[in-house]
């Protein structure tokens, strides 16, 4: 019999995090979902428990707070549970000129995108049991690969995650822990993205995915022990192209794009 696994999903109430929760529950994996209070985790939990034969616990926490990291694992300990899967999904995106956002915004963004996954990975690795395979999925972004304006901090935070993951993959060699980097293109998640992504055409439209498809591909890749998961042929093509094109051509393309936007 397969051991009962428990997965921690951060940012579980909406978008990709919700899709991860559904996908894992569908595979019979117990959940500990984490999101801010008042984001509907109670309804999601009830729904997943009645739809699938799993435990779907949740914690309403602010992941920018230091005590939240240990709070998650204290909760598991109280329930005599070891987490085998960590989905470092929480993150805050934006699309603004750097000067247009406040220092408070950048502090929150970097806490969520950089600090939280690092801290949770640290605490998670402290409690894993090497006799059972454990998995960590870090949600990066193709934005961590391409240097684009208006994505200064977001892109840098995702580049951090990519470096962190690749380095940890080397360190974890020989241990029974698998770590994957998910590098998705655009995902139809938030309402404003639903509107914006509709307007895309051609290759740009082909880079956009529904959250449930990204989640399915990502969990498949995670269990197969893939180092980096890039959903979609168009996105894979962009990654290859990025490796081939010299920097000055890429910069020229970006600059021209910016001119188009005035």
């Amino acid at each position, binding site marked *: 019999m397969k051991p009962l696994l428990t997965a921690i999903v951060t940012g579980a109430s909406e978008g990709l995090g*919700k*899709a991860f929760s*559904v996908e894992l529950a*569908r595979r019979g994996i117990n959940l500990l979902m984490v999101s801010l209070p008042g984001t*509907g985790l109670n*309804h*999601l939990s*009830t*729904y997943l428990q*009645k*739809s*699938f034969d799993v435990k779907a616990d949740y914690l309403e926490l602010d992941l920018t707070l230091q005590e939240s990291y240990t709070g998650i694992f204290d909760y598991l300990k109280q329930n005599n549970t070891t987490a085998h899967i960590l989905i470092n999904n929480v993150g805050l995106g934006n699309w603004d000129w750097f000067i247009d956002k406040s220092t408070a915004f950048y502090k929150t963004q970097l806490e969520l995108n950089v600090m939280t996954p690092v801290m949770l990975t640290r605490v998670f690795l402290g409690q894993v049991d090497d006799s059972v395979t454990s998995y960590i999925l870090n949600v990066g972004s193709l934005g961590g690969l391409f240097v684009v304006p208006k994505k200064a901090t977001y892109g840098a935070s995702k580049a951090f995650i990519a470096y962190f993951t690749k380095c940890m993959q080397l360190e974890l060699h020989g241990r029974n822990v698998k770590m994957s980097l998910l590098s998705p293109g655009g995902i*139809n998640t938030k*309402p404003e993205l*639903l*509107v914006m992504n*509709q307007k895309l055409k051609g290759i740009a439209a082909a880079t956009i995915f*529904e*959250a*449930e*498809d990204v989640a399915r591909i990502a969990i498949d890749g995670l269990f197969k022990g893939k180092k980096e998961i890039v959903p979609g042929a168009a996105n894979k093509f962009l990654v290859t192209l990025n490796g081939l094109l010299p920097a000055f051509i890429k910069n020229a393309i970006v600059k021209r794009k910016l001119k188009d936007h005035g």
Partner: protein
Amino acid sequence: MKILVTGATGFIGRQLCLKLAQAGNHVIALCRNTQHPYLIPHANIAPIKGDILDTASLKAAIQDCDQVYHTAAMAKMWCRNPNEFYDTNVTGTINVMEAAKAAGIKRIVYTSTCGVWGPTLKHPMTEDDPRVVGFPIAYERTKYLAELEVNKFVANGLDVVTVNPSRVFGEGPVTDSNSVSKMVGGYLKGKWRIIPGDGSQISNYAYLDDVVDGHILSMEKGLTGNRYILGGEDKSFDEFFATLKEVSGKELGMIKVPQKVIKFYSRIEALKSQLTGLAPFFLPEFADRINFNQKYSSQKAIDHLGYRITPFAEGMKRTVNFLRNNAN
């Protein structure tokens, strides 16, 4: 009582106008064409020319009204101009809410759809259940975005109750946006012989009169800011056509078309529409739905509002009789 109904020529709106008028209300029926054939003539129904995208016409129509039923929407599968979905369903709804706020309307019933939840995983969906798939279907996406806008108005003190009908069928004109009537009408003429998929796909079918009553009950008893699913019975395609055969007494040899075939065909249709601008018969995002059930529970409306569900066979019988008597 003076009541504004938007979408007065629509499948739900026209019947709602009639029911409200018969109850002695003074109904202002907002329509883009006051000579529209679907508009029901009645002494208490005053058709007024207007458009939810024309705020001046809304302002004029809403004046002195006590209540508003906002049923107008772009519910077709496809539009030549894809922005029409957003404009009508989101911007139009914002316009109606703003006009209602400015006019001091006491309560608005907003007609959303069960499409905001979409497919079902296991049990029938309830109002509290989350959506678990994305929004590839333009109608569902824009109706969801419109609900978010309505929520903002509720947070700012506007009294809105939202109703979410499932797949509505009943005695009314066969329009582009009513797929059930198209199937039933086609079946009666011997032209519809297709069962999509393997026949096991379940949908929820709401009888028009129940849905109209549900609107009025929501106006009377609904809780501000709440949503109420107005559905009917969950039926598979096999059950649907078995009932249709039974109540119509007409037996057709039906062909089950596998989902993959429909998906392939829908891709060709989508390409055709892209190249020619002609309306597609079917689209890939709808073909994907054949793999899912769409089951919904009306229990909250039954408990809170006293909503009643006409048995599916009875509703189908009346629909068949209506379509036979009004065959064109």
